[in-house]
């Protein structure tokens, strides 16, 4: 039995949500890891508006813009995170990758009731992250964008990403566990 009174089997099957935490301006924003299809290396995370990776076209925008914030000047560690779900694909430029983290869903809290506007649909909630807070973006909202319907096929000048470079998004990043019970 674990110190919490759970058997090893029970503890081992406990669900955690794996998230990638990034910064966008002054915000820490978490993206669900299953949503992430690739992360472009710094040298490919420049000003491209459209990239093609494995025959999939991603329209790229600043995550800050998607969140209705003024885009900040390009950060030196800026990266493009390629996200997808079903047939919806988009790329988001973020200021910095903070790393992957496993969060117990019980520690993801909805926004306080004082927030009564559209933001309730933008975020699934927040959680304590390091000595601060991270906002968990609602993936359905993130990938739903009015311009998606108009997104054409890859334009001739779309940046093409070499398939050989594709790595698991978590491979190069340190994993940390937030408020989740782990067993050996």
């Amino acid at each position, binding site marked *: 039995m674990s110190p919490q009174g759970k058997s090893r089997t029970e503890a081992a099957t406990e669900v955690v949500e794996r998230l990638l935490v990034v910064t966008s*301006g*002054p*915000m*820490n924003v978490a993206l669900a890891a299953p949503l992430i299809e690739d992360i472009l290396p710094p040298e490919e995370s420049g000003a491209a508006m459209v990239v093609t990776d494995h025959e999939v076209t991603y329209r790229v925008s600043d995550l800050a813009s998607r*969140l*209705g*914030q003024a885009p900040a000047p390009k950060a030196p560690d800026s990266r493009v995170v390629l996200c997808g779900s079903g047939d919806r694909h988009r790329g988001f430029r973020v200021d910095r990758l903070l790393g992957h983290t496993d969060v117990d869903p019980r520690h993801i*809290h909805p*926004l*306080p*009731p*004082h*927030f*009564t*506007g*559209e*933001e309730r649909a*933008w*975020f699934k909630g*927040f959680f*304590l992250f390091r*000595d*601060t*807070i991270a*906002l968990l973006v609602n993936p359905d909202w993130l990938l739903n964008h009015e311009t998606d319907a108009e997104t054409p096929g890859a334009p001739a000048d779309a940046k093409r990403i070499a398939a050989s470079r594709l790595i698991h998004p978590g491979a190069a990043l340190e994993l940390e566990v937030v408020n989740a019970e782990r067993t050996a």
Partner: protein
Amino acid sequence: MLRGQRKQTVERAVTWSVIVFFVGGRALAARTEEVGGIRPWADAMPVPSRTPSVNALIRYGEEVLPVFDLAGFLKVRVQGGAPLCLIAKRRDGRIALRIDAEMPRLVTVEADALTQPAEPDSNVLGLFLAEGKEVPIYSLVNLGLPTIQTA
């Protein structure tokens, strides 16, 4: 005995205990029972929001509070290098207000001395005079919330 008790009750009812605090150099007040505490301001994280004046979260240990931008609401700027956090007990829960670094003070005001603002403001319970200036007493319970209509 009964007469004495009644007199005490009446006396309590005619004075208000308020906390006077400052935002953008302006003195404001709130009833003490609507204030949940005063702390040093911690770094707040902006939250993209369409809710008027509610646009950040602030963390104190394990507690996370929403932030009401009182300075923006009043169209002033918080003053002082080390601003304070006043926790308001709004009817939908505790909410943090960033206030000036100047230390708030506890004041007792006579209810009879309260006046109403020239322009009605649903956020203001009344005004009192302190050092020759009118100080508005804000209703923190309803701060920034739509007025509840009663039938």
